[in-house]
């Protein structure tokens, strides 16, 4: 037990000399350890170590040594008692110089690591700089060997599948499974021109299943059966939009006559593209100019319904009912899924009653989930 502080024999030049030497030694130790810590941090995370962490880590080594010396020798330096101001000054000296050298060591360690591991040091601050730094460490995701075709879509070209099979793509490190799937989807759609991507990502980040579908472009893929699109010279009404029903009139000095009715698609200048029945196409003359009138119609959200159906797993399948198929004579209500339309020779039965029976020669459009549609397909003796 210490009652009064005991001064060392003399706080003279030699004490000071030893103290300064020790301070220097400890400070260099702090700097060295900080260099190491910063180096390892940069290597592991590709980011610069925060100043606080580095300095505290570096300075704690001399502190540890001092504490051990304090514990076992009951003095920190040269017999100065622990209460004496010389001890206090010495410790503070160690810390102050240690902090300085630690900061220097941090910069050195960081710089060395960037050089050795070819890490680009981004010196800016802010979120955007963080984003760029995040690029330094990426995770490699390998696509599966076989790429499937998405159900309900046209298959993509073989060369796209060949380019993507077993390809390794890099993504930033800290993405959740959902984020990874979304980024993969966007990437395939934008870079490879794929229309529809369905991807299953496992919890550990590997891709289990990839199915692709091609995008439809052009007019033919959006034409219902029995209809056609022609371009005619004629001003369309202002603000006409897709789906507006049009009447096409031929006007001359003597008479006006209705040529055909159709639906507006688009226009450019004085050329309008309209959707008409195939049988009406011949009524148009190539060189004539027509007048186009809009007539009223009820609003319709079929496009949105189609878009919603497209986003979900449910889809429509077309089933041809032959005389010998097991579907012949079945009630509509018994078929898995929902029967939307039955095309029977010239007749179209929309949303048929549950008690309606399917006859041979019918074409049924059935809506449901893939398992339901598979159940419909396996009604038939041989699978298509």
């Amino acid at each position, binding site marked *: 037990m210490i009652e009064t502080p005991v001064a060392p024999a003399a706080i003279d030049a030699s004490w000071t000399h030893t103290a300064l030497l020790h301070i220097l030694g400890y400070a260099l130790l702090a700097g060295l350890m900080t260099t190491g810590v910063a180096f390892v941090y940069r290597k592991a995370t590709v*980011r610069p170590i925060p100043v606080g962490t580095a300095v505290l880590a570096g300075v704690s080594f001399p502190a540890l040594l001092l504490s051990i010396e304090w514990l076992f020798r009951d003095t920190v330096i040269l017999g100065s008692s622990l209460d004496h101001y010389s001890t206090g000054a010495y410790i503070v000296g160690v810390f102050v110089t240690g902090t300085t050298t630690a900061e220097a060591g941090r910069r050195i360690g960081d710089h060395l690591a960037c050089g050795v591991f070819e890490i680009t040091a981004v010196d800016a601050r802010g979120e955007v700089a963080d984003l760029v730094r995040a690029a330094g460490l990426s995770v490699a995701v390998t696509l599966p060997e076989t790429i499937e075709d998405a159900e309900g879509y046209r298959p993509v070209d073989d060369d796209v599948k060949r380019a993507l099979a077993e390809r390794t793509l890099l993504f930033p490190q800290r993405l959740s499974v959902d984020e990874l799937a979304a980024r993969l989807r966007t990437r395939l759609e934008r870079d490879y021109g794929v229309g529809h991507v369905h991807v299953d990502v496992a919890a550990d980040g590997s891709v289990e299943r990839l199915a692709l579908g091609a995008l439809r472009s052009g007019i033919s893929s959006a034409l219902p059966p029995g209809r056609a699109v022609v371009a005619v010279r004629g001003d369309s009404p202002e603000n006409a939009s897709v789906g507006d029903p049009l009447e096409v009139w031929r006007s001359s000095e003597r008479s006006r006559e209705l040529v055909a009715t159709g639906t507006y698609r688009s226009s450019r200048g004085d050329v309008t593209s309209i959707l008409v029945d195939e049988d009406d196409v011949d009524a148009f003359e190539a060189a004539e100019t027509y007048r186009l009138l809009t007539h009223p119609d009820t609003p319709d959200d079929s496009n949105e319904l189609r878009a919603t159906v497209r986003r979900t797993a449910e889809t429509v399948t077309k089933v041809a009912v032959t005389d010998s198929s097991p579907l012949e004579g079945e009630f509509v209500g018994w078929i898995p899924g929902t029967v939307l339309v039955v095309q029977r020779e010239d007749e179209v039965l929309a949303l048929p009653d549950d008690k309606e029976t399917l006859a041979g020669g019918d074409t049924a459009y059935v809506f449901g989930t893939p398992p339901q549609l598979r159940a419909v397909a396996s009604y038939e003796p041989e699978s298509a």
Partner: protein
Amino acid sequence: MAGTPVEVLMGISYGLLLGSVTSLGTGTLVAVVRLYADRSVPQSVVAAVSLVGFGAFGTVVGVLDVGADQTLSLAISALVVLLLALYAHSLGERLAEAIPRRTAQTTERNRTLAADAIDAIDAVGHVTIRSTGDVRDVDGYPSLPPSVRVRLERDSWRLPADLPLAELESRLQARLRTAYDLHTVEVSIDGRGRATIAASPATKGVASRVPDGWRAASIRALLPTDLAPGDEVRVETDGETVAGTVLDTTTAAPTEPADCGERDRPRAPRAAPDGGGGAHPASSGGDGRVTVAVPTSDAGALVDADRGRVVVTPGETTAEFDALSLLERAGTAARKVVVDEELKATLTDEASDVWLFALRGAGERADGSPDGWQFGPEADAAEAGDRAFVVGDQHRLARFGLDEPNAAAAMEGR
């Protein structure tokens, strides 16, 4: 001997010494707990542990046994220890977040964009990459047509900024190949986000798309807007009608390639979302030339004629499209509505022609469907306020309109 300044000195020195050691310990503890147990050690626990450590060490060493005249230095050192411990707590948390987690996949360390590129990064985190100016040809391959070269030199492409340079290069390569229909592309991107591009065009572009036994011929005609390669058409010339597939279109009054791509093309192929039109942009309509692939026997009609008329016929469609179109022609329409009492009564009425196709709860999302839509629900499952698609006779449905304009509903319907 000990005055207040000396006490402060002693207090701070003890505090620093003991504080560094304890904060090293507590900081490591916090980081380890965060990394492996994914839990956060509360700050109060850290403070308590550090003070206990300080007290224990002090007692062992003998510092704490001194009398009242040492209280100031003890108080100061306790304060310093506490501050350092709390600081170490936050450092430990940040350290745990920064350390990359172990995953089953390999991680790679790569070169990234430099600080200079930060100006080119927008708010969404995408960097705009431009060509350095000269687009070179690839040795041994045919050279690029001037129009494509100009487009490559002027266009810019947006890619996520959190990818390494190697990956940006490979993504840009794939995108250029798809969007500009190139055969070989070599790209190298520097730290500032500028790309040096060498490319060669696709060879035999038209010929490779012509089936065996067919020929491709061009003819002038009035073209519908959005006529794109792959469309099935009937070309009517004086007397003869031939059926074929569109390979390419050009309009008579070409505007600048980049503008034409963006403005006049409402439904562009998604292969070219940014900069430059797609490899085969859809026709913008009007007078122009169309290249059609027809059976060889019919090619003569196209060769003889000067002008023709182009009629686009249906091609391959999906079953769902056909089904909905047939419904439409039969006078059945689909409407997106908000369910109210009147509608609910109509739906549950067996005799009415109105049928509930899909339902989406007004509150939480229904299970199953990713968008919250449930297909084929029971008619009485609809509650007032739910959104629903109803299908039925178009005139009956005209009464059940949506209150909001369609655009707002479409945005919400995602």
